């Protein structure tokens, strides 16, 4: 890794504080992190990253999905994490805490996004 390489592509550097918590490689991990987070963490992530979704996907769509690595790969994983968090914040809202234990019983055993992540 280059010494100055950022965690994310330069245009998305402001989202780097969210990488460690939210850029996870597998769908089941992302779903579990949603449940294991606090409402404040979810809202902060959604507020910062939600408005950047289109821009991030446009950036990634210009690259071959199979070859994503390093900062690009983390940006993809971060947006996939955002998919779960957006449901919690935008759709479930106050019901999120109540529904989390039920959702966790629905065990994700396979996802098309996992194929290259193993």
């Amino acid at each position, binding site marked *: 890794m280059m010494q100055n390489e950022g965690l994310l592509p330069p245009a998305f550097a402001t989202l780097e504080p969210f990488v460690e918590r939210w850029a996870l490689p597998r769908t089941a991990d992302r779903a579990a992190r949603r449940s294991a987070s606090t409402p404040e963490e979810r809202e902060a992530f*959604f507020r910062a990253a939600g408005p950047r979704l289109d821009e991030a996907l446009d950036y990634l769509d210009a690259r071959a999905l199979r070859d994503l690595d390093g900062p690009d790969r983390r940006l993809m994983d971060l947006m996939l994490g955002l998919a779960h968090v957006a*449901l919690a914040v*935008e759709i479930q809202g106050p019901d999120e805490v109540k529904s989390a234990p039920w959702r966790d019983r629905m065990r994700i*055993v396979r996802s*098309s996004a996992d194929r290259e992540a193993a």
Partner: protein
Amino acid sequence: MDQAVSGFQRVPAEDLAWLGTDPVPAAPYYDPVYFEAERQAVFLKNWIHVGHVCEVPEPGSFVRRDLEFARASLLIVRGRDSAVRAFHNVCPHRGTQLVEEASGRQTKFSCPYHMWTFGTDGALMSAPDFEAFHVDKKDCALREVLLQVCGGMMFVNFDAGAAPLRDWMGAYAERLEQMPVARATTFAEYTYEIEANWKLTYDNFQENYHLRFIHPRSGGAGIGGANQFGYPVSMGFEGPHRTQRIWSNPEPTLKPFQRTGAMRGIPALAQAGLLGLPYERDYLAFFPNLFVIGTPTQPFSHTVYPIAPDRSRGVVRVYWVGDDASASQRFAREYSLAQIRDIHAEDIAMIERGQRGLTSGALSHIHFQSMEALCRHLFNEVDSRVQAHLARGAETA
């Protein structure tokens, strides 16, 4: 108000009256005697969905499927001749289960106990010191269970004399073949165990009466305007199977991110020719425990396998055509999976609550309104088989 003018026409109750209107007995939803009769007369006598052909893409590809209702483990294998077969995962020597792996690819299957070895067609290829046995190799093949495929979906039948799958499906075979699932090459899956009868569990997904109460946020787009319950626009019945067409809300309330999440997957769906298919608003239910949804952005199947009178296992799969080809497509699929899982999570809480009430024995009967006609149809189809089975048992006795 004129419902047709405002965009929704409820299916008239008189069109559904042939299903009956009486209360339905509660015991079939918890009684162990009834459950055992169902196991024998319904689950061991009908075509049961066990997977999709995309799971066994090449000769030697296999999956193991454990089916509690049959107390069986099946080995589903694509042979060198490309045919997919199901075998009991049982060595004919002394009964040892052959395969522990959930899936894989092999050219042969060896029993770890005494190394009897079988081909992908189930034939016994070799067995050490076989001359010392008093049996022919041809009588030592793996025991086959009927497996047939329609629309990519694999079904097994434990009744060796069963009518062919397509006959049993009737006119719905062609509908299934025109749904996205028929072209699927991959899928996402989640499973759950639930403390509830399989019919009670399955029924939740056959009626929309509960949507506005249980899914006020997650299911918001399917409710509104002239259709405050999100009732279907039509219902249909084909032998023991049934269908309903989901209402298209002309003014769905979509949140900004939700709209983006859905839109990101649309170009790839359009390119693959998966938009505008004839059954894309349909829920298609195959007796007894499978239903498939044709919605292109969320084409899923849901199967409820019975374990005990008050315990079941659900398997939900979202089926996709082609591997993820772009970041947008991957994102849209992830969002779609997470979204339907949210909705199902809300359901299971209420289903278990229903089971506790029923198991108490407080009720002799339960009630289905006309917009719960699909639930009534399932009960009727199950009950006629169970009653015939019990009557045969009484005659024998």
